[in-house]
């Protein structure tokens, strides 16, 4: 989509702004808040990563080496919650904050103070999540939640102090997400530049619009479920307690009504930004703009009606099993449309493989594996074998690491020169890409086979026949973890200085954000551009 615009002259001018901590605490500027989201996300990515490296170290060989099973369980649950709520979701919101106003020609988000508040709920939420580990060191409580991130009842009803902390943390994360989502929806509906109809909206903004609607439809259900869990734990209710007439399976329904759309909440923003990258480095317009928009909408709608495929083995009635199997498989249709459009965007393009493009192509290939193994898991009969095995662990890491985190890296490398005004090191970027891809596959490909061979997930010790593949997986995990330091170092160097980036940055980039200076002025699009 090419857009002819009239850009106001002052859009290239920068204005003075105050520095210091107070700026970051009180800022209502979308770029500052976007930067804070991205920084927070990166820090928590390393926190969550460190936790899982401890887990993988324990799994390096059979037997208990480093930790007790209770602590092992706690690390797994908090790793997942940190990665989902404190690393991936804030990264996506950071992109939204930085990019949506720039891309739609708006001076800022529609509700800037709500924006600030939404961000500053995150540090207390993350603190609540990891606090039980610290308290346990002082003899208070028995550590963090040991239920896995799913809080399944009745284990979570009986669990220790860590469950309460996690419940409050999830509430705070949820409130923050809802605030961010409301802000994004009203910004996209009300702040677009004159002439930017909904069908000229950048795909990234479209994807985020669907994500935001998913969030406001599902976060309240999660909040309701964990509030009920809290009252079961402390106020004598029996929502999930079979002994009191409650139903533990009800918790699974409520949790996964949120939990499945959550997968798409994590992935959709990435699916929205990847087409921009593919188009830029193929030097061709996005293929199938409308098809992609309709696919986003279809995926959003389908994602809220498929939740029970996460617990096929819980004893659901057969008609329900059949319905959830087919509805789940139906998601592969709009997803296939997206894959087709992404490949067709590159088809016969004048392609070049700078780091963002490498990550985008890597994302397509590896995320394809997640999609195909997802189809296997959607099959009720086959799922009886796969359920609760390492096959599932491998599948959702192919989905969330390649579909989520590698997508975030795609976006960071793509827009970082625009945000900072400097080019990152292409050499370091390429090293980061290849180390990430090779070590990721080294970590998770063996886990498919471990799962097929019957190794259950969430166990600190395992039978001897699983030893070799677990050792390979652990070696891969450590290379994967430490190679992310290259990413952090590259960002740090790029923020501090480096080769000056041009306004357009990439030869093939199209869209409003590239018409601003690099870095953009602190206040951009005060006079909105007009799209002809």
């Amino acid at each position, binding site marked *: 989509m090419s857009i002819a615009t009239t850009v106001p002259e002052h859009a290239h001018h920068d204005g003075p702004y105050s520095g210091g901590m107070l700026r970051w605490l009180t800022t209502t500027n979308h770029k500052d808040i976007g930067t804070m989201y991205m920084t927070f996300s990166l820090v928590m990515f390393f926190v969550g990563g460190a936790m899982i490296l401890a887990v993988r170290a324990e799994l390096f060989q059979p037997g208990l080496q480093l930790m007790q099973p209770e602590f092992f369980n706690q690390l797994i649950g908090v790793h997942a919650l940190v990665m989902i709520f404190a690393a991936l979701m804030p990264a996506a919101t950071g992109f939204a904050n930085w990019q949506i106003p720039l891309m739609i020609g708006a001076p800022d988000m529609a509700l800037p103070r709500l924006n600030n508040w939404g961000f500053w709920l995150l540090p207390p939420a993350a603190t609540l999540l990891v606090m039980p580990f610290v308290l346990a060191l002082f003899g208070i409580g028995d550590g963090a939640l040991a239920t896995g991130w799913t809080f399944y009842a009745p284990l979570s009803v009986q669990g220790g102090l860590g469950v309460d902390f996690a419940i409050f943390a999830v509430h705070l994360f949820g409130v923050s997400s809802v605030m961010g989502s409301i802000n994004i929806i009203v*910004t996209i509906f009300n702040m677009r530049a004159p002439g930017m109809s909904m069908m000229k909206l950048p795909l990234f903004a479209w994807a985020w619009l669907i994500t935001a609607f998913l969030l406001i439809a599902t976060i309240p259900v999660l909040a309701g479920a964990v509030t009920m869990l809290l009252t079961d734990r402390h106020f004598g209710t029996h929502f999930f307690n079979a002994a009191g007439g409650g139903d533990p399976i009800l918790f699974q329904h409520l949790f996964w009504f949120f939990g499945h759309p959550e997968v798409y909440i994590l992935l959709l923003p990435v699916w929205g930004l990847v087409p921009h990258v593919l188009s830029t480095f193929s030097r061709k317009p996005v293929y199938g703009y409308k098809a992609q928009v309709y696919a986003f909408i279809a995926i959003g709608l389908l994602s809220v009606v498929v939740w029970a495929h996460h617990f096929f083995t819980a004893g659901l009635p057969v008609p329900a099993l059949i319905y959830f199997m087919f509805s789940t498989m139906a998601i592969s249709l709009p997803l296939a449309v997206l894959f087709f459009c992404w490949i067709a965007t590159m088809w016969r393009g004048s392609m070049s493989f700078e780091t963002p493009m490498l990550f985008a192509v890597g994302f397509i290939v590896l995320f394809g594996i997640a999609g195909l193994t997802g189809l296997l898991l959607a099959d009720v009969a086959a799922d009886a074998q796969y359920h609760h095995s390492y096959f599932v662990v491998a599948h959702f890491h192919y989905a969330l690491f390649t579909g989520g985190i590698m997508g975030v890296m795609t976006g960071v490398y793509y827009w970082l020169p625009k945000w900072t005004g400097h080019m990152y090191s292409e050499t370091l970027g390429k090293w980061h890409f290849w180390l990430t891809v090779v070590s990721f596959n080294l970590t998770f490909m063996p886990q498919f086979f471990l799962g097929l061979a019957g190794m259950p997930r969430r166990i600190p010790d395992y039978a001897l026949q699983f030893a070799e593949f677990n050792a390979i997986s652990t070696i891969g995990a450590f290379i994967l973890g430490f190679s992310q330091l290259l990413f952090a170092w590259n960002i740090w160097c790029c923020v501090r200085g480096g080769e000056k980036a041009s306004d357009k940055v990439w030869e093939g980039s199209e869209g409003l954000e590239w018409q601003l200076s690099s870095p953009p002025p602190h206040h951009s699009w005060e006079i909105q551009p007009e799209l002809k």
Partner: protein
Amino acid sequence: MSNPPAASADAAWRRARSNRMAWLLGAFVIALYITGLFIQR
């Protein structure tokens, strides 16, 4: 759907519309949360 040209009256109109829409969405979220609390088997 296309927006009218930007002007200061236009900015005020956008702000008012944004606030109204935000309150509406917030009310929807709270209603959904409260409904969730009353879910029984």
